[in-house]
C-alpha cells in the first residue's frame, strides 16, 4: 500500500495531478448545475413578470 502511495518516488508529482483533475471535474459539475438552477430561477421570475399568473 505504501509502495502504491509512494509511486516509485514520484508521489509529489502524481498525486497532486490526480487531485487537481478531481477538483476541476468537481468544480465543473457544481458550476454547471448551479448555472442551470440559476437560469431556471431567472426564467421563472421573468415569466412571472411578463405574464402575471392566475394562481400566484
Amino acid at each position: 500500500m505504501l509502495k502504491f502511495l509512494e509511486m516509485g518516488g514520484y508521489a509529489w508529482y502524481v498525486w497532486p495531478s490526480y487531485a487537481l483533475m478531481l477538483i476541476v471535474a468537481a468544480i465543473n459539475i457544481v458550476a454547471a448545475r448551479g448555472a442551470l438552477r440559476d437560469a431556471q430561477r431567472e426564467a421563472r421570475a421573468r415569466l412571472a413578470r411578463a405574464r402575471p399568473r392566475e394562481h400566484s
Partner: protein
Amino acid sequence: MAWVWLHRFGSPPYFYRVARRLVPWFAWPALLLCLGGLIGGLVFAPPDFRQGEGFRIIYVHAPAAWLSLMTYVVMALSAAVGLIWRMNVAHAVAASCPKIGASFTAVALATGMLWGRPMWGTFWVWDPRLTSELLLLFLYLSYIALRSAFDDVARADRASAVLAIVGVIDVPIIHYSVIWWNSLHQAPSVLRFGAPTIAPSMLYPLLMMLVGFTCFFAAVMLTRARAELLRRERTAQWIVEALDADQGGPSRGGGRTEQSAASAW
C-alpha cells in the same frame, strides 16, 4: 435526412428536453469509465521502462489535453453553425464550452508541468506544443472576456463566434506541433495514423479515460447549454412547459425547487 435531424435539434424546446434526458446517459458512463480507467491506470498498468511510476500522470494529462482541444473544436463548430444559420441552440452550445475548455486546458498545462519537472528537469520550456497549448488557454480567456463585454446576448454570440472561428487554427497547430518541429514533448502515440505505439496494458486504461472524459464533457456541456438556452429564449411559450416538466409536474406557485428524478445529475 441529416438536415431534418439538424433542424429538429435546432428547435429549442426539443433540445432542452432531449438534453435533460441525455445527461444521465453520459454522466454514468463517464463515472464508470473514469473509475475503470483510474483503477486500470494506477493499479494494473505496469510501470514504464524509463519513467517508472511517474508516467501514470498520463491518465490525467492526456485526457485533459484531449478535452481542451475537443472542446474548442465543438465551440468553434457550433459557433459557426449558429452564425451561419442563426440558431440559438448552436450559440447556446458554443457558450457552454469555454469554461469547461479553459479549466481543462489549465489542468493539462499544470499536470504537464508536474510531469515535465521530474522527466525533463524543468517545469516549463517554450517549445511549440506547450506554447500553443498556453495560447489555447489565452484564446479561451479572451473568448470569455469578449462574451461578457456585450450586454446583448445575441451580439455577444455573434462576435464571439467570429473569435472562436478565427482561433480554431491553433488546434491543428497544437496537435501537429510535435510532428512539424523538434519538440521536447513526445510525438502522438494514440491519435495518429497506424497502430498506437504504447503497450496494451497501458493503452486500455488511457482509452477508457479518454472516452470517459468525453462523456463527462457531454454531460456538463449539455447541462450548461440548457441554462444558456433559457437565457436566450426570454419568455417563449415553451419555457413555461419546460420549467413545469423540470419540477416534475404542473407549477405550484414557484415555491418548490427542482428535485425530480429528471435532475438526478
